[in-house]
């Protein structure tokens, strides 16, 4: 099957090497430090209690996010609701803010203590992550072949077609989104600390902040990682053999459901709207004064620009990297493909602090100052943490393209590079765009890596917002939230512009 040193093998091995250097090496550094700390972590009764708390929170949050997100996805993706696209964008806004910021924002708006404890945590985190469920469900509903829905419409109404055909076919996307929400909630500790609900990541965090014990902190992060990997195994088993040939298509107008038929759904959506939109709009209301906005811009305008720069750079690296790795995994092109997939997912769920310390210890030496003392270190962190995201998204896209497409190009004499560039990449346009924008957004909203890694004076907007939150004026913090959302809108607009020009 070709030479060992073919362009294909070299390129793919290069992509694998990027992930290994960015992610595996710092992981190794931390792993070595953690040896000998596992006994105390595992034998500590309080840790098990915290773990149970974490699972309870993650499970409830996922359930609430699903109960709100799926109906909203149907409402915005499958009905003739006026302004449905605008609504979808509005409901995605909480995702753009770090949960801690959102939690503090809610508290400042509501100013009451009922927010504290488990219910408040569920409310804040579910409103923060509900858009993940909503957006992925919408995307996957769109990939369902319209003929399949029309075939159902001949004998059943839109609602029945939706529940019997469209939703089951979109199930892989819904399940993926639920898994993501579960994992993101599981690793969250900023918002939960603020809302006074003890969760497992606190165990790792305490090792960092009270004892400066990096090894113990890493060991304490491992049970979370184990749960994550278990979750992924379940996902894989559940979805095994259930991936169908999807295709991107304009949604069939005939399968749009008339709103009249959707009384209960509408009610649910209104409830979700109140839970999500009211507090958020209150934050915006508070921060939207020219004075607060001016102050926010004055204090954090440069950080906003850097946020954008880091995120766009990272996403632009992550997208081709994810494409190559997904190719490697999908075609099983190199030995060890399974390990690469697992490594990426492992890194995705590792707490940012653990990864960050590993990166510092690895790269902070005179010889590599050019990485550590520049924003490159932040970008390395983003690559390590988010490669799984772009890889998984690209994998979904790649598996929709029949292998025969590439084989046909091969038979016509095209080399591997040309096949990738001229055939596969254009066919995967949709998921390339999706991978770029999703990784870009995740980098934009990340706070733990920039807080730990950004060189002095070169922080990001999330980091700046969080450092200014310590005793900062509520109006300023609200205005910073607005700035954060505004900055996020820029890459979205850029992508929309590119897509529109192509179409």
């Amino acid at each position: 099957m070709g030479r060992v040193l073919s362009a294909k093998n070299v390129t793919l091995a290069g992509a694998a090497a990027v992930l290994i250097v960015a992610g595996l090496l710092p992981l190794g550094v931390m792993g070595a430090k953690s040896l000998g700390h596992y006994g105390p972590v595992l034998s500590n009764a309080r840790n098990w209690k915290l773990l149970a708390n974490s699972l309870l929170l993650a499970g409830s949050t996922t359930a609430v996010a699903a109960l709100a997100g799926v109906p909203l996805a149907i409402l915005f993706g499958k009905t003739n609701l006026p302004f449905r696209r605008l609504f979808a964008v509005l409901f995605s806004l909480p995702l753009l803010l770090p949960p801690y910021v959102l939690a503090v924002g809610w508290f400042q708006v509501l100013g009451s203590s009922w927010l504290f404890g488990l219910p408040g945590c569920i409310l804040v985190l579910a409103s923060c992550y509900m858009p993940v469920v909503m957006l992925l469900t919408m995307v996957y509903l769109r990939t369902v072949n319209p003929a399949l829905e029309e075939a159902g419409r001949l004998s059943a109404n839109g609602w029945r077609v939706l529940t019997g055909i469209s939703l089951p076919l979109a199930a892989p996307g819904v399940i993926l989104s639920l898994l993501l929400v579960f994992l993101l909630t599981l690793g969250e500790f900023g918002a939960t600390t603020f809302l006074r609900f003890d969760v497992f990541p606190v165990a790792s965090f305490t090792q960092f902040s009270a004892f400066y014990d990096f090894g113990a902190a890493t060991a304490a992060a491992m049970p979370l990682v184990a749960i994550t990997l278990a979750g992924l195994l379940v996902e894989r088993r559940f979805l095994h053999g259930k991936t169908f040939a999807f295709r991107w298509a304009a949604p069939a107008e005939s399968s749009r459901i008339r709103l009249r038929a959707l009384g209960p759904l509408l009610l649910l959506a209104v409830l979700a709207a109140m839970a999500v939109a009211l507090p958020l709009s209150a934050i915006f209301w508070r921060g939207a004064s020219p004075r607060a906005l001016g102050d926010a811009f004055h204090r954090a305008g440069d950080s906003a620009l850097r946020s954008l720069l880091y995120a766009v750079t990272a996403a632009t690296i992550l997208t081709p990297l994810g494409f190559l790795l997904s190719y490697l995994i999908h075609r099983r092109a190199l030995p060890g493909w399974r390990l690469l997939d697992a490594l990426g997912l492992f890194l995705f769920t590792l707490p940012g602090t653990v990864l960050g310390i590993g990166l510092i210890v690895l790269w902070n030496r005179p010889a590599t100052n050019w990485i550590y003392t520049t924003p490159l270190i932040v970008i390395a962190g983003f690559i390590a943490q988010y490669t799984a995201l772009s890889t998984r998204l690209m994998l979904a896209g790649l598996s929709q393209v029949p292998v025969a497409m590439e084989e046909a190009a091969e038979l016509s004499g095209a080399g591997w590079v040309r096949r990738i560039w001229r055939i596969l990449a254009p066919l995967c346009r949709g998921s390339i765009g999706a991978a770029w924008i999703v990784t870009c957004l995740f980098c934009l909203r990340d706070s733990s890596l920039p807080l730990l890694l950004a060189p002095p004076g070169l922080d990001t907007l999330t980091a700046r917002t969080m450092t200014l939150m310590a005793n900062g004026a509520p109006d300023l913090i609200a205005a910073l939230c607005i700035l954060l959302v505004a900055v996020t809108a820029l890459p979205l607009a850029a992508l929309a512009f590119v897509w529109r020009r192509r179409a």
Partner: protein
Amino acid sequence: MRRRIRLPVLLAGLLASAGCGARRSTTVVVYVSEDQVFSEPILKDFEKETGIRVRAVYDTEEAKSTGVMNRLLAEKNNPQADVYWANEPIRAGLLRQQGISTPYSPGNAKGIPSQFKDPQGYWTGFSARARLLVVSKTAAHKPAGLQAYLDPRWRGRAVIANPLFGTTTAQMAALFSLWGDQKAKQFLAGLRANQVKLSTGNGESADLVASGAFDFSLVDSDDAVSRARQGRPIEIVYPDQGEDGAGVFLIPNAVVLIKGGANTENGKKLMDYLVSEETERKLAAADCAQIPLHPGVPTPPEIKPVDRIKTMKVDYAEIAARLTAIQPVLKEWVGY
């Protein structure tokens, strides 16, 4: 066409400018644990007055102000910071133990009482917070000192912040240093026995008392002052002021010079600036209402000047040493 060129050039420029930040003589790198809202204006003034560019890394409340400390420790082998502006002097001791700091005694700190300076110059204190009792106006009895925590009259009515974090850790270490291990451990056991509520931080403690849910709590002076300014029903009690009382525990800010930083000379200039009367005046007037240590600098109206408070006589270096030693005790006490 022009638009197409602009963005990449801008991006490249920004990346490059980050790379050449190391022009030695004109910058200083400072890691800051004092809240950015209060510290940044001071650093901006320093930039304006000296022309030295300050590149700062700030801390978050989310990480209980320990983020930059983690960073300093992780960067030990190739230090990036020149100066560490800590919001308490205890961690300065930890940095010294780890060989991360180096001595320097700023000339501007001459007027600051020696109690608030490391004799060898590993850290220099300025603008302090005091550990005060915030007491609910609705409380049936007013506490006078820390022993109230053990008094059955306040059984289940008192709050203290989690001693694993922040200034409460320092306070515990101070008590261990002042009383010795046995009495301090008895105090901890007494807190449990008297059903003292554990909060996640001093801010929460102050709120719990201000809402009337609890009678009193030991908090930082800025937490007490901010509640008073909001008009909440609380009063401030200076604990243990009696003849044989131990006095109020003061926690000054501290500046530390980092060993092996790239801009040590500028770092020293910044340290001199930070411990000056001028900086203390600004921090007293700001919302953080910190207590100046230079005699004669005006104090925030809600707070007594330092020379009218009986302060706890403690050796911060010893507290630092105690801090590490008592961690297992605190950890066990909290239940981690």
